[in-house]
């Protein structure tokens, strides 16, 4: 009992073990798996990242002229880094940063907005494929 009382008394002068969070900044370790970042200039639009992504957080919108638009949902992403490993040009087109994503605000539409986008991407793919198919048939019939 004497030792425990001594310990308890000494504990008054020992440094605090917990992290004083709002007063002190939380330090993330180096190499923290954070947001996926995208460089449009180096991207070759191979769609490999979209295919490997487990939750489907990366989508490409297919425009009618053949170009594509990248869209990424940081709130759906599980930060596994599989897309970066699949990317043929890592570090230039797609890389994993060490920044942490904050919680979504209502205006950002993390769920509803993304559902709309998912539907739009799916539809754009189908329309593009159908247009290509009909163009092929037309070409053949002309020949």
């Amino acid at each position, binding site marked *: 009992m004497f030792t425990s009382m001594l310990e308890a008394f000494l504990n008054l002068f020992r440094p605090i*073990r*917990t992290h004083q969070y709002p007063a002190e900044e939380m330090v993330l*370790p*180096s*190499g*923290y*798996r954070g947001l996926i970042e995208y460089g449009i200039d180096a991207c070759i639009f191979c769609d490999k990242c979209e295919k*490997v*992504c*487990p939750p489907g957080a990366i989508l490409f919108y297919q425009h009618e002229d053949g170009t594509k638009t990248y869209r990424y949902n940081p709130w759906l992403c*599980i*930060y*596994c*880094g*599989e897309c970066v*490993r699949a990317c043929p040009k890592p570090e230039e087109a797609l890389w994993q940063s060490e920044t942490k994503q904050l919680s979504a605000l209502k205006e950002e539409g993390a769920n509803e907005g993304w559902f709309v986008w998912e539907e739009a991407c799916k539809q754009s793919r189908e329309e593009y494929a159908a247009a290509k198919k009909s163009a092929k048939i037309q070409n053949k019939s002309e020949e």
Partner: protein
Amino acid sequence: MKKTIQIPLGSQHISLLEPIRFKFECENEKIIGVDADVGFVHRGVELACTRSFEFKQVGYVVARVCGLCAITHSLSYTLAVEKLLGFVANDRIKYLRMLMVELDRIHSHMLCLAHTAENAGFEALFMQIMGDRELIMDVQEAISGNRVQFDYISIGGVNRDLTPELVALIHKNLGLLTDKIDALIGLFDNNWSLSLKYKGVGVLRLEDAYIYNALGPLARAAGLATDVRAETSDFPYEDIGYTMILESTGDIHARNFVRLREIVNSIAMCQNIVNNLPVGEIQEKAKGKPNGEAVVRVEAPRGELFYLVRGSGQNMLDRVRIKTPTFSAIPAMMEVFKGSEYADAPAILASFDPCMSCTAK
């Protein structure tokens, strides 16, 4: 007139971390019959693995079955798929995987010890052990890049390599932890509420352990020599100084001691792995698609984790079956409850270290 009374424990109870329900048939204070219900957190992971995700993505899905043994789940699944693909990992990959599994075992056992202490009415020790556990969590976070969802193991290797700074951090934190575990062993042996109170409580006899197929620390505390690490040859555990930890009494005290001594053993193994890391690539190409059926057993912190994976040469798998250690240990758990006091039930339950989110998946 009926002589027994039914008392439920759960699904919501002050001593429970996760939802599980036991219905105790009590005669005065003695428990004479037990009924268990574990399916409160069912999420349909097995079906999702075969319907919504391709086999390369499933490793990340099964890692989310459990927060504590995430690495063991993804490791078992990856081993099963690698067996189907005919891929054999090199020694460096094997050692890095072993390192993460052993670190996982250390922090899982520490969590269980903390809760056992809490159930003995020892709140301060709970805080202390959870604080010490941060040493291991920090190492895991630095190695894998995330605190809980490691996503470290992928088909064909591991995702990150050890750097010299990481090796220094591992040595520093494991060194600090060794002293703390030594102090804990003394405390668990000599403290009144942790040793005398728990000696002879919740006894599982060796014969019952055989009959009811106990596994993991529960079986080893009863003296049943069962450990997947010694039984399978997927990993070179003999080379890094693995020893089977056995106790004979089978009570809560023995379970605590199996866990404490396994932590000591795991720390030694981690240091061996880091010191003797072979040279090689950390990621190799595993080509093809899974065709056939593979069964894998891996020793999770709580016991044997069993995976069955069946594929038919396509991107989608036909079947993923996960049998978790807690699920297999339920018959033995129910046997332990019989004959003990009702007031001891929360403490006995905490000493099993049940993981409901694994079991119900």
